[in-house]
């Protein structure tokens, strides 16, 4: 079948009368050019009378109808006359079905340019309501955790362990990789300047202290925030979108107690454990550098043991515990805050990760100040 196209021929007559002869197929494929031509003609001629001769039209679809309606509306807007002749009866009926004579073009909302004051107000309100929501969530979470601590039998342990495995144990390889590489790289970077002073052995002190006190818990919890906090948000967000949260509420089950405590307890359990692991692997990574410089392993181990104390180690674990609380709580909170719409779950996951990272870093700073004043 040869592809037929639409064509348009224009004629002007006395008294500002424009005649457009349409022929061929008026459909969404062929109309593009014709429509532009007609727009152009109408804008130039501004005819008081427009006559459409449609006797050559073989076929018209919804777009063809829209084309005719467009011409009609343009004339009506200028209070000028419009007439169609020769439109096959079938198409005439179709035209009436699509657009009865009183049809008016609806206004299509154009996006408004943003107004600075309005935007600032919106943002301030968003920040304010986010704070309020976060504070009330903190209260709910504290209450739920206290309840769980008082009634440990009521915790759904099976689910806690399931979450621990998915969100924690399965994160072991990536955490090991990151910790190992960071330990190795840090030791390597430190070995060169320290070597200039002939004190390469102190690389062991540096690596062990910084990993135990700082990097171990930080790397572990940031990785978990990205990996598991976001999945908490996405999971709970999807439940919210599917009205599963509503179902819980109407069954009399508090979503914070039912969903959030399980995840928070799991995170509080696994983050310190993974941190211990990250500490070990990180220090192991540092040893590679000294081994390659000819120091025996036992020297490295002894140097590490003399450099660090149990306090350094437990400081790191305490931090890890708090960071775990932060990323799991924030992940769940963002999940519960999920709005409707297809991008809502993705937005929640993003917000969970961003907020968790910010809060973890801030908490880390606070810890540094506290430990400094405590002198440990």
């Amino acid at each position, binding site marked *: *079948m040869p592809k037929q196209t639409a064509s348009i021929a224009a004629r002007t007559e006395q008294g500002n009368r424009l005649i457009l002869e349409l022929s061929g197929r008026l*459909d*969404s*494929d062929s*109309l*593009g*050019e014709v*429509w*532009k031509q007609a*727009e152009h003609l109408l804008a130039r001629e501004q005819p008081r009378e427009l006559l459409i001769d449609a006797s050559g039209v073989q*076929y018209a*679809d*919804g*777009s063809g*109808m*829209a*084309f005719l*309606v*467009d011409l009609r*509306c343009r004339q009506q807007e200028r209070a000028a006359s419009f007439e169609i002749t020769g439109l096959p009866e079938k198409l005439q*009926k*179709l035209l009436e*079905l*699509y*657009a009865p004579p009183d*049809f008016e*073009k*609806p206004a*299509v*909302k154009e996006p408004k340019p943003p107004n600075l004051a309005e935007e600032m107000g919106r943002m301030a309100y968003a920040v304010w309501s986010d704070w309020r929501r976060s504070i009330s969530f903190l209260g709910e979470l504290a209450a739920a955790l206290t309840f769980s601590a008082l009634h440990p039998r009521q915790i759904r342990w099976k689910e806690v362990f399931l979450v621990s495995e998915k969100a924690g144990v399965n994160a072991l390889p990536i955490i090991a990789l990151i910790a190992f590489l960071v330990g190795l790289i840090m030791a390597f970077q430190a070995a060169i300047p320290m070597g200039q002073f002939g004190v390469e052995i102190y690389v062991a002190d540096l690596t062990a202290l910084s990993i135990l006190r700082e990097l171990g818990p930080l790397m572990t919890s940031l990785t978990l925030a990205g990996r598991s906090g976001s999945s908490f948000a996405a999971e709970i967000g999807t439940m919210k979108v599917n009205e599963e949260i509503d179902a819980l509420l109407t069954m009399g089950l508090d979503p914070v107690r039912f969903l959030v405590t399980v995840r928070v307890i799991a995170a509080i359990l696994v983050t310190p454990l993974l941190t211990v692991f990250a500490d070990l692997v990180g220090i192991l990574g540092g040893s590679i550098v000294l081994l390659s410089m000819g120091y025996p392993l036992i020297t490295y181990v002894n140097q590490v043991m003399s450099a660090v104390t149990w306090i350094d180690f437990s400081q790191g674990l305490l931090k890890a515990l708090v960071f775990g609380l932060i990323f799991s709580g924030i992940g769940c909170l963002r999940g519960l805050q999920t709005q*409707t*719409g*297809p*991008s809502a779950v993705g937005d929640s996951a993003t917000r969970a990760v961003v907020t968790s990272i910010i809060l973890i870093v801030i908490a880390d700073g606070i810890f540094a100040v506290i430990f400094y004043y405590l002198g440990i």
Partner: protein
Amino acid sequence: MTASTTPMIQVENLTVGYGQDIIVDDVSFEVSRGETFIILGGSGSGKSTLLKAMIGLLPPKKGRVLIDGEDIATEDEQKHLGILRKIGVMYQSGALFGSRTLLENVRLPLEEFTRLPGRAQNLVACLKLNIVDLKGYENYLPAEISGGMKKRAAIARAMALDPEILFLDEPSAGLDPVTQAELDQLVLTLSKNLGMTFVIVTHELPSIYTVADRVIMLEKESRKIIAEGRPDHLRDHSDNPRVRQFFQREADPEKV
């Protein structure tokens, strides 16, 4: 338009299923041009699976589906797109894009597949919404309108490029009787005035009597078509008790 006499849709010895499970086994039927064709069956009888195979979402295990003489499962990208232009699908829940307004939903296929100027696309989209009686809701988001309106908007979107066939998956499920009846009227209007072919999956009896030219009925146990014909004829004259039972809304005697 080609005034050919080939049927609009031919389903030949079609077997479909998921993994090892066969849901519909070796069925054949035809849908003529301009016909309103209804696929019936109880829950789990494979209505939606059959529909998915007909629109090419589910590759057949055996047999083929021809739309206007062309195999829907063709490897040829261009041909496949050509076939897709001929069909429009309304999914059970509407499947409107939630982040776009109704107008933008309907306009999307026009933006992608036509070269109409922007204003023209808007107008075409508005007319489509007008035809499904959604004038005035152009700037609403899907989340802001009711279930019945979503379904109508989904029909408008399916019609954006003026397909020859519209597939509707359970259009009246979950709607009140008045809205159901309005939707039936819409189908009748479109079928009468635009000459569209409809393939509808449903089990709403009133709708079936109102709109159907012909129905087929699937059965879960045999995985085959157990009846074919006009609905009122099947109700009164079918020799299969299961078919009569369906049309007369009786519970399964074995389960009572």
